[in-house]
């Protein structure tokens, strides 16, 4: 009996056309503009068009992914969509994606692990495939943060962008490579550190006294400290579990939140920062979608190839942090 594995067949991504440079952020004081790049490494971001929503971005990424893999939508058993900026509070954004994609056989649901969405989603797909529940699963992560950010909030608006990534997984044999292991962590005691306070049952819009409560907020310095403490620890645990050394890892696809966080993580792991794939200068932080977008670009640009060992790792609201070890 051969052991089942969750094989990565193909990836795709979609970034909206509208590209906004830091110096086009006219709502902020001119003297504050250079700080954006210096503090985070973000110089541009993409913004969804007025008539584009989260499922529209997801659809484009999903189509590109399936096309690359030579997969027909009707062959997909399940669709998992990671998003923290859904089309609507309900139903799941994945249901519109399923319809638009024409994946009639597929079940579809959302997960919300905020910026860790891609890594939690990969772990979930792996469970479904390894258990024999599914053979073909499409994992999509899509975010339109420009709609949930306060455009006047300098501490959040300049750093995020819209985008979507997708990965198609299929059952395979262990020798073919695939998702080798995952580690997921959550500390719910810090759930207020990154949140949209209003719009749910804790604070319905009707009971909101401060209009700013409808927007995303984040305690940036605390998130920075959390990430540089927890992520190296998580990656070490992941590699230990798989009995793999850091030198075996071709590339680390880390959540694209802040260039200085990535540099600190690299230093802590004693890994050259060049081994971390980065695209945040161009796209900013695309929240839950960043890891799948980066994975697709790393593959497309030849930074990683079939047979390479790759770590995907992310952190964000919850607080949640997760990592996957994948043999491409």
């Amino acid at each position, binding site marked *: 009996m051969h052991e089942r594995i969750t094989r990565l067949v193909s990836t795709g991504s979609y970034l909206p056309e509208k590209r906004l440079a830091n110096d086009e952020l006219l709502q902020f*004081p001119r003297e504050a503009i250079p700080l954006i790049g210096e503090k985070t490494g973000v110089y541009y971001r993409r913004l969804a068009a007025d008539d584009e929503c989260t499922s529209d971005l997801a659809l484009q990424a999903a189509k590109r992914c399936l096309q690359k893999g030579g997969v027909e939508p009707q062959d997909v058993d399940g669709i998992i969509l990671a998003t923290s900026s859904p089309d609507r509070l309900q139903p799941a954004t994945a249901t519109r994606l399923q319809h638009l994609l024409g994946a009639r056989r597929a079940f579809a649901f959302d997960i919300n692990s905020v910026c860790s969405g891609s890594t939690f989603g990969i772990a979930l797909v792996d469970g479904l495939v390894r258990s024999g529940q599914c053979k073909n699963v499409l994992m999509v992560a899509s975010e339109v943060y420009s709609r949930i950010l306060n455009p006047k909030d300098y501490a959040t608006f300049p750093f995020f962008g819209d985008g979507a990534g997708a990965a198609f997984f299929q059952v395979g044999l262990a020798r073919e490579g695939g998702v080798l292991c995952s580690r997921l962590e959550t500390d719910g005691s810090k759930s207020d550190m990154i949140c949209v306070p209003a719009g749910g049952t804790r604070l319905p819009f009707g009971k909101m006294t401060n209009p700013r409560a409808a927007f995303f907020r984040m305690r940036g310095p605390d998130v920075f400290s959390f990430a540089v403490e927890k992520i190296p620890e998580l990656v070490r645990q992941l590699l230990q579990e798989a009995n793999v050394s850091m030198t075996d890892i071709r590339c680390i696809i880390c959540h694209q939140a802040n260039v200085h966080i990535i540099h600190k993580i690299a230093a802590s792991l004693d890994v050259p920062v060049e081994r971390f794939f980065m695209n945040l200068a161009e796209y900013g932080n695309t929240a839950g979608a960043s890891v799948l977008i980066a994975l697709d670009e790393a593959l497309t640009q030849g930074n990683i190839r079939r047979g390479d060992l790759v770590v995907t790792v992310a952190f964000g609201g919850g607080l949640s942090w997760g990592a996957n070890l994948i043999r491409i």
Partner: protein
Amino acid sequence: MSDVWERLKSVMMEEFLEPDDLMIVTETTKLAEISNWDSMAAVNLQILIHETFCVELPLDLLRDEATFSDLIGFISFPETIADAMRKVNIRN
């Protein structure tokens, strides 16, 4: 002056301050003592002061060691801002 302080506290409560901050914030509190104060928060405070009081306060005057008392002074007497900036420039 006390009116400026009350308005400043009120808008800051909406934007920045955590409930715990309210217990410690006085006119002598330094900006660096606010939870999650950093250079991003300084820009947001600059915008907030401009929107609320129509006073343009340079970022150099929103440094970590500035107190709320300093801010109240600049908001109440904007003509002192230029002089304060000259001192900052000499120091730099």
